[in-house]
């Protein structure tokens, strides 16, 4: 899973705003308020009710609502339902406290030890997977002769059964945090392991643990009620479960008797779950939101003035992403590009300059939250913006093709290399399975894979990065596209492999007569292969021209700066792409621009 792990770096500013955000979140305020209210009612039970929970009076058997001193009436044994309800709250609260605290103590302690000390981990792992194999409720039942049905002992055992969940959370967080720089720094500055665990690591894991606690309390209350419903434990302990069971027996005579305990029990568990969710949203950021996988609804194509015969014409293209506050943040603002058939255009710029976004827009595969605010993209005179997904699908693979940057993540890890290529080829050209297989094998040989049969049957993790990039190139050119969009096709590769891949691309282009839109930050690559160059910065094209012109006399200072940096940097980018500028951060959160 790609979810970023919370770094847990202490940030006082964030902490203050967390409390603030929680107070402003109606869900958190209402549920927490409701819970506090219920707990207070339970604590005040002796004052609020005029009878004890087990005091029975023959005169009040199944008494109706509003009987004096019996606000909710009497149950089948003539006990005050209101009093029993209030005292049941206390039973629930005690259950929640015991269950959750045992789970937290056991889980956090073992998680810290297992996560921090590598040597202890296999022992803790084994123990907790053992605990997880117990069918929980069944074990509580089986051990009834031992516990005598006392709900406090039962809840303590249940706490142990709940602890693997906490253990996993803490262990994962600790393993993640352990190698963070601030923990290293603490170690170097002479703090003992114990202090580091207590001060730094524990601090970092608090978020997920707080969230889990709400759910732990909820399940403890639910299980205690369930067991009491079954009749486990002495009848003198008032509990929602036993009240519901008695009411259930009495369903035909007084149906409301089952409603009261259900209502309070339901309110308590529901509040805990909702509070847990509110805490999660606040502490871990907004929940993941799905979005339709399809072409974007774009603004109506606006530019029409260019009647040229170029293969690809991009005019005044602007792409924006919504910010958390709801405004649109433009990452591409008014890009113009033109690419003739058979030509190679280098689209050059730093990370976050909007080049990849532009490329995705041409392919129609921008992330769903992106908004194309204006502009036009025409391929062979046909407007692409506003096309339906099915219409775009007809173009993809056959007319426009794409080579991604990072070879490994762009192959489906659980399908064989061959099956992915065959599927693409068949989708784009409709040939038979047998013919597709033969063509794929031939393609694999063409892109320089030594043993095509073997690679065909391999899974992505079994081949090298260079091989994977060749596979992706084969996948892109399988249907002899007219336009090939290559997004940093060599960035993720070793220097020696880079040159080979560029050679392959050049050969394939000559062979098939494709136009190539080469997205790169690397002027070395550009010099090698491109006819013309467009330089992008901050979402705009700042300079265009033939490679010769630009290398000889770049006019824009930014282009000159990029060119100069080539000399220092040679041709390899060694650092990982950094999300330095705010704009890059936006694009990063969209998960696309590398």
């Amino acid at each position, binding site marked *: 899973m790609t979810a970023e792990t919370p770094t847990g770096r202490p940030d006082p500013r964030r902490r203050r705003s967390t409390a603030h955000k929680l107070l402003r979140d109606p869900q958190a305020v209402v549920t927490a308020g409701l819970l506090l209210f219920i707990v207070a009612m339970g604590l005040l039970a002796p004052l609020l009710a005029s009878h004890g929970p087990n005091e029975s009076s023959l005169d009040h058997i199944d008494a109706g609502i509003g009987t004096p001193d019996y606000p909710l009436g009497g149950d089948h044994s003539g006990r005050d339902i209101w009093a029993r309800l209030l005292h049941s709250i206390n039973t629930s609260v005690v259950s929640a406290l015991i269950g959750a605290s045992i789970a937290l103590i056991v889980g956090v302690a073992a998680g810290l030890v297992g996560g921090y000390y590598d040597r202890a981990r296999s022992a803790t792992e084994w123990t907790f997977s053992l605990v997880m194999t117990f069918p929980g409720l069944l074990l509580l*039942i*089986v051990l009834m002769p031992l516990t005598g049905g006392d709900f406090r002992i039962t809840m303590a055992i249940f706490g142990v059964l709940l602890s693997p969940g906490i253990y996993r959370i803490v262990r994962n967080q600790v393993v993640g945090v352990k190698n963070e720089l601030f923990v290293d720094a603490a170690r170097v500055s002479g703090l003992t392991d114990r202090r580091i665990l207590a001060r730094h690591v524990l601090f970092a894991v608090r978020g997920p643990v707080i969230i889990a606690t709400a759910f732990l309390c909820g399940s403890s209350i639910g299980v205690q009620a369930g067991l009491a419903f079954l009749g486990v434990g002495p009848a003198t302990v008032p509990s929602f479960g036993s009240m519901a069971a008695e009411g259930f027996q009495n369903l035909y005579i007084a149906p409301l008797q089952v409603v009261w305990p259900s209502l309070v029990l339901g309110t308590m568990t529901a509040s805990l779950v909702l509070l847990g969710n509110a805490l999660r949203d606040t502490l871990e950021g907004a929940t*993941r939101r799905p979005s339709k996988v399809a072409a974007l609804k774009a603004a109506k194509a606006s530019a029409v003035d260019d009647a040229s015969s170029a293969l690809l014409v991009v005019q005044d293209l602007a792409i924006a992403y919504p910010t958390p506050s709801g405004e649109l943040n433009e990452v591409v603002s008014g890009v113009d590009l033109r690419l003739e058939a058979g030509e190679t255009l280098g689209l050059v710029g730093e990370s976050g300059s909007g080049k990849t976004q532009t490329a995705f827009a041409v392919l129609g595969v921008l992330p769903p939250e992106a908004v194309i605010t204006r502009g036009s993209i025409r391929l062979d005179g046909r407007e692409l913006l506003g096309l339906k997904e099915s219409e775009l699908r007809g173009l993809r693979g056959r007319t426009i093709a794409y080579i*991604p940057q990072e070879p490994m*993540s*762009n192959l489906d890890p659980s399908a064989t290399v061959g099956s992915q290529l065959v*599927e693409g080829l068949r989708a784009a050209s409709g040939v038979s399975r047998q013919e597709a297989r033969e063509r794929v094998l031939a393609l694999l040989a063409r892109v320089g894979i030594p043993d095509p049969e073997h690679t065909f049957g391999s899974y992505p993790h079994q081949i090298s990065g260079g091989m994977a990039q060749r596979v992706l190139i084969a996948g892109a050119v399988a*249907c002899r596209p007219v336009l090939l969009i290559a997004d940093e096709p060599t960035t993720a590769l070793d220097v020696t492999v880079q040159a080979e891949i560029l050679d392959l691309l050049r050969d394939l282009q000559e062979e098939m007569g494709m136009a190539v839109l080469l997205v790169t930050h690397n002027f070395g690559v550009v010099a090698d292969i491109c006819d013309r160059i467009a330089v992008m910065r901050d979402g705009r094209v700042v300079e265009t021209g033939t490679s010769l012109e630009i290398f000889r006399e770049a006019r824009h200072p930014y282009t000159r700066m990029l060119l100069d940096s080539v000399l220092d940097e040679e041709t390899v980018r060694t650092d990982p792409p950094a999300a330095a500028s705010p704009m890059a951060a936006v694009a990063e959160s969209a998960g696309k621009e590398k």
Partner: protein
Amino acid sequence: MLLYVIRRLVSGLVLAVLVTLITFLLLAPSFDGIVSNRIGIGVTSEAVRALKADMGLDRPVLVQYLDWLSDAVRGDLGVSFFSGEAVGHTVGQHLGVTLSIVVVTLLLTVAVSVTLGVLAASRGGAVDRITQAASLTGHLVPNLLIAIALVYLLAIRLKLLPATGFTPVTEDPAAWARSITIPVIALLVASVAGLTAQVRGTMIDELRKDYVRTLRTRGISTRAVVLRHALRNAAGPALTVLSFEFVALLGGALIVEKVFAIPGFGSYAFDASLQGDVPVIMGITLFAVLLVVTINLAVDLVNGWLNPKARIF
């Protein structure tokens, strides 16, 4: 592969021995109570001691356990203290009843959760909001309350289905289906809620991955990308959750069995536990552990098939 399965089965057996040993040790302190429970009140302590010796409960605990174990290895789980029936047979019978409910529940859970989770993750919008609300409700309402509400509504008010009782599938499939409908719905709500949330979450993560975009750029339809590629990658974690839900259902069925008077594994365990019927408790524990071990092994094998990187053969 075969070696792996054998190794896992052996470790499963070790686990079964450990768990039954722990259970036995935990039960041992209550043997006195069990004996007097069986003999009734107002008997001399002399008689209690005699019966205890007679039942073999006066020997050292470890000897008793090893005795039980060696019998169990030979397939003899003893007889119930109270009914005198062979434990192996009756446990199997009750387990069958529960499994017939749990398996139906799981199949429906998979069908509903995968459909909802995939639709929610790939469509977003209203489908997603409905799915999330439904899954939240399932988490919110305790099992117990759903069971009570369903009995009241479907059986008592609308008289559509029998409120309680169970017909074995071998006797009358139609009556069986009717008798398990309410229990299955009651169990389904919580397990669907859990699995749907899981499928939705992992599908959202998968659909954001690079390979999804790349497959789309080759002209493969969204539907094929979602179902053939993303879903397959999301299936592994979902399967693990499903195996946890299976274990939870084995126990969770208990309340439902009690409410609906179904002679299942859980209510059998419950009664045995109340009486302190040690041989039955031991038999139940053994069956439960073996079942869980088998399920986990099956899940790991299927996971290996789904995820080539986790393949152990």
